[in-house]
C-alpha cells in the first residue's frame, strides 16, 4: 500500500507517508516523555515526604504536640500539597506514654501522599507514596 501510494502520488504521497509515520511515533514519544517526568516527580515527592516525616518526628520529640508535628510536616513537605498528606503519629496523643512522661520513648511519624498522575487516565488516577521517621522523645512535662 505504501509503495502504491508512493508510485501513484509522488512527493505528495511521501509527505503523507511521513505524516502518518510521525503520527505513529509521536504518541509513543509523548507517553515516554510524560513517564520520565512522572518518575522524576515521584522521586522528588518521596524525598520530600521522607524529609517531612523526619521533621515531623523531630518536632514531636521536642514538643509532644500533634499540632506542631502537623505544622512541621506541612512546612517541610514543599513542593507537595500539604492538604493531601495523611499524617499518622504513633503512639497517638491519647496513648501512653505520651499522656504522662514520654521522655525516652520513641515517637514515629508516618506520612502517606496521594500523588496525582498526569498519565492517570491510562492506568492509575493517583499513586500513594509514603515516608516515615522516628525519634526519641526529649520533651518533659
Amino acid at each position, binding site marked *: 500500500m*505504501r*509503495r502504491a501510494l*508512493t*508510485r501513484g502520488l*509522488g*512527493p505528495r504521497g*511521501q*509527505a503523507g*507517508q*511521513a*505524516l502518518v*509515520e*510521525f503520527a*505513529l*511515533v509521536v504518541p*509513543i*514519544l509523548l507517553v*515516554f*516523555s510524560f*513517564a*520520565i517526568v512522572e*518518575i*522524576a516527580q*515521584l*522521586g522528588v515527592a*518521596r*524525598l520530600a515526604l*521522607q*524529609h517531612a*516525616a*523526619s521533621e515531623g*518526628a523531630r518536632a514531636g*520529640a521536642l514538643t509532644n504536640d500533634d499540632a506542631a508535628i502537623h505544622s512541621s510536616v506541612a512546612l517541610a513537605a514543599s513542593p507537595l500539597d500539604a492538604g493531601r498528606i495523611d499524617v499518622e503519629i504513633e503512639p497517638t496523643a491519647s496513648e501512653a506514654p505520651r499522656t504522662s512522661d514520654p521522655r*525516652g520513648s*520513641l515517637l*514515629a511519624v508516618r506520612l502517606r501522599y496521594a500523588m496525582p498522575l498526569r498519565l492517570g487516565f491510562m492506568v492509575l488516577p493517583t499513586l500513594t507514596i509514603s515516608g*516515615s*521517621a*522516628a*525519634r*526519641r522523645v*526529649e520533651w518533659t512535662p
Partner: protein
Amino acid sequence: MIGVQRPERRRAQGGSAGADDEQGQALIIAVFALAIAATAVIGLRAAQARLLTGAGDESAGEAAVEAAASVYADAAFARHRGGPSRDPGLADPAVVDAARAAAMDAARANGRDAPVEPHATVGAGVIDVELRLAGRRYRADVPVTCCPR
C-alpha cells in the same frame, strides 16, 4: 517534520527503490526513542534509589545520635543534680550501654538495623556525641554547665 529531513526522499522522487528504503524509518525512530526513554527511566530510578537510601540513612543516623546524646545529657544532668561535679559520668558503663541501646533503638525504628557505637567526649561546656552509621559520621553537641576546661 521527520520525513522532510530524510535524505532518501530525493532518490524516491527519481523513481528508484526509494520507497523501500523509507520503510521502517518510523520503526527505527520509535526504537531509538524507546531506548533513550528506557535509559532515562533506569537512570532516574537508580539515582532515586541512591538518594532515598541516603535520606533514610541520614534520618536514622540523626535519630540515633540524638537519642544517644539525650541519654548522655540525662546522665550529666542527674550527676549535676546530685551535687556540683566536674565529671558528667560519660564513662559510666551503665550510661554507655543505655546510650548504645537508645541509639540502636532509634536507628532500628528508622529502618536501619545496624550496630552503632556512640562515643561521647567532654569539651568546653559541651558534651560531644559522635557515631557512625552506614559509613557516615553523625555528631550532636549537648551544652552543659558542668565540666569547664
